[in-house]
């Protein structure tokens, strides 16, 4: 019961969850003609993109993000859909960490949402693609500012300092 109540009155005023910071960083690989076919209602809140493929350096590691599709979804406040609070939704999402060109870790998530500022990426119950036979974590968290990559397992937590 409480959760239902909280759902109704829970919300965030995320003035900051405004997506344009990322707009310049996202480079949809599809051409603009395809983009223009997307109804405005889908794109009005922020970018819509397909076949995302981003690579950036974090400390001594390389981060690659791939997703089949990205779009923006409104959040809720007091039961209202709020254009102030926006989340990116990523479909068929791969996150890969490299070090000196060698793949170190890779996870897959069918669908999850993320804060547009993308300073921290948290994925619950991701599927580990690499290393093979790796224990499946409960959650992974990537903090770009602190350059920390944390893997939460059921009975332990691994923290990678990406600066090293």
């Amino acid at each position, binding site marked *: *019961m*409480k959760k*239902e*109540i*909280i759902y*109704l*009155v*829970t*919300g*965030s*005023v*995320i*003035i*900051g*969850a*405004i*997506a*344009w*910071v990322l*707009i310049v960083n996202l480079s949809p690989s599809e051409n603009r003609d395809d983009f223009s*076919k*997307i*109804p405005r*209602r*889908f794109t*009005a*809140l*922020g*970018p819509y993109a397909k076949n995302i493929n981003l690579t950036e350096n974090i400390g001594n590691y390389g981060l690659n993000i791939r997703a089949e*599709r990205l*779009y*923006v*979804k*409104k*959040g809720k*406040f*007091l*039961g*209202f*859909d*709020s*254009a*102030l*609070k926006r989340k990116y*939704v990523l479909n068929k999402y791969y996150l890969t960490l490299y070090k000196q060109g060698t793949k170190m870790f890779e996870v897959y998530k069918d669908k999850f949402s993320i*804060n547009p*500022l993308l*300073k*921290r990426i948290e994925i619950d119950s991701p599927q580990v693609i690499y290393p093979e036979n790796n224990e499946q974590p409960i959650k992974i968290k990537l903090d770009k500012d602190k350059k920390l990559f944390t893997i939460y397992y059921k009975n332990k937590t691994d923290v990678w300092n990406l600066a090293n």
Partner: protein
Amino acid sequence: MGKARFFKIVWLLIILSLVILITGCGGGGGGNSSVNPEEQTTISVTGKIVDSDNNPIAGATVAITSDPVVVTTNQWGEFSAKVAPGEHTITVTKGNVTLYRSTFIAQEGSHIALGSIIPNYPDGSGDTQAPTVPGSVTATAASSSQINLNWSPSTDNARVTAYRIYRNGTQLPNNVTGTTYSDTGLSATTQYCYTVSAGDAAGNWSSRSNQGTQSCVTTQASTDSTPLSIDSTPPSIDWDSISPASDAFNVATNALISAIFSESVDPSTVTGLSFAVSMGTSGILIPGNITSNGTTVVFTPVPALAYGTSYRVTIRSGASGIKDLAGNALSSNFSWSFTTVHNQIFDLFIQFIEQPTDANYTTLMSAINALGTTQEAYLYKALGELMDIYRSPVAARMMQDFGITVGLDSNFEQLSTQYTPEQLKTMVYDYLKLKLQNEAEHRYLINYKNLLVEMEQRLTRVDNLLAQADGINLTVNLDQAESVKFDSIDIKVMRAMTNLLKANFIYLQSVNLNIINYTVTYNGSPVDIRDLINDPAYDDTQFDAIVRELCNKTENQNLFTYSDRSKLTAFRNTLATAFSHYGNAVTAIQGLTPEESETRFLNAFSLDSDYTLELAKSVRDSMMPSILNCIDNNDPLIEFISPRSEQTGQEYVDGGDGFYYLQKYYDIYLDHFCFDTTNTLYAYTINAYNLLSVNGSKTLRDMAVETDNFVRNTPQGTNYLPYRLYNSVIYLTGLVEKLWDDFFEMP
């Protein structure tokens, strides 16, 4: 006069001839540049000195340099002299008056006849003789506004240089050199009288002419002589007569759009179609008010223009275009574009969000304050202050625990606590941990009372700012990629949020949060809980037991009990205010037409589907009144109602535009709760609803006590009575939620 000019021309021709001769000689006789004076020949120079009337001036002295030669004119004014070849100056004087001075060149083998020489008074003085009085003026009325004049010429010892004209005794500003004049700009059927006087170069002026009868005349009567014409000229617009200018950038969002036509336009032809303003290249017209006044047409956008947006203005020609008063339309459409200024305030918002420092907050608020007292400024001030409130640790913690989550990005979460939500399961635990771990860093918790009062005051200020922003209609366009709209409904939702938050800060002011005895037992030994929590080896799993011991200490028995019940009334009223704003927002959305509702898609707050609207209505109509009812009535049987929804299905629906949309279906239930006197007490969060169920009475007592899941002796007793669900009824079924953003393309 004519003679004088003639002789002057002759004289100039002579001089010119001499120059030509000397030039020619010099070219051929280059070897004779040195001339022996003994061999010099003399050249004869003759002339005649006369006045302007060709009367001879006898007895004048003629001096020719540089020989020098001095001769005197005879009775006929004639003189003759011999000079050497070369350039000479001739000066004619009589008495003390210099009559004439000029130069000439004497060429060997020639005779120079200077002809008649008329005095030119080169020194400007000496001539004291005024010209003769002109003959009477003859005036003729040429029209209703013009009179033509003529008069007989004057004579002068030198020459007449100008005539003054007097109209009715008053000198006209301009002199004339001739003997005719046309006086214009006169009044019809009015008599005017004229006189003239003559002047010479020395400034001598004659008396005015006689004012004879012929010198006065009456202008003709005025007649409407303007021929009747048909205006067939179309109006036009100059590029310099439009505003904002074509291709202008950084145009203010409150700018008016205007054009000045070449002639007055017919106001009835000025419409939103004939003077059309559209956003970007979409062709979608923006709303506004149009006024015309003579040649000027002004379009006032309502609401104001969006930030960072291009607009196109089209003034149409043709049958539906703007026409002049004669019915002539523009010859062709007149169009131009401009772009509004980028919203720099939101850049500063982002900067503050990414780096929530005091300096960035100051920068943000300074920029906002510079906006003055517009509704836009009030909105930004409210948002800025809310964000600053959110970044305080206790505020962030409270808003999460009370369901008013602060989601100002993860940076704020980092600021708010060093602990994960899993560690901080309750508000009590949060409070204790934050307070105990490092009091110095958490001044808010040390001086929590002051903080709570400060927060209440700040939120009151935010609410006042939002009240002043009510009625705003603002589109904030963010980098051309997305936009957020704010209107009166959004303000209501924000005021609901603000007052909910404020109510919780008020409520906590009634609770004692002071810890007196910090000693607890850990691994069988007494230890200060502050040292314990700061110990890296501390086992967090024992925290529940430690907190129980701390709370049960005699010195701490008043912890989490009411210390100021007077705040409870303010809490209730603030909660009611929040509910009122929420209800008003839902009602306003409920009253929108489908089209109006659709346009709210980009608003800060909207209810985008039947499902969300009905859910919000049930909160407004059932839950919120039941909360206030519980607070206001100390009746054990009174119920608390909470809406609950159950998803009954979902499917992708062909949207007909190449995409499928995810569509979900819901049933909404209303759950009715009353107090359970039999179940084991248990509650693990503080929120506004727990406080309703204490000791079997639905009052605002002992909220904090009931939030703990253990029994302890307090002045309020040990009974903790949680509420239980006793009935659940269907409210609405089959409600549809279209998840427009959760779509996929058709195969």
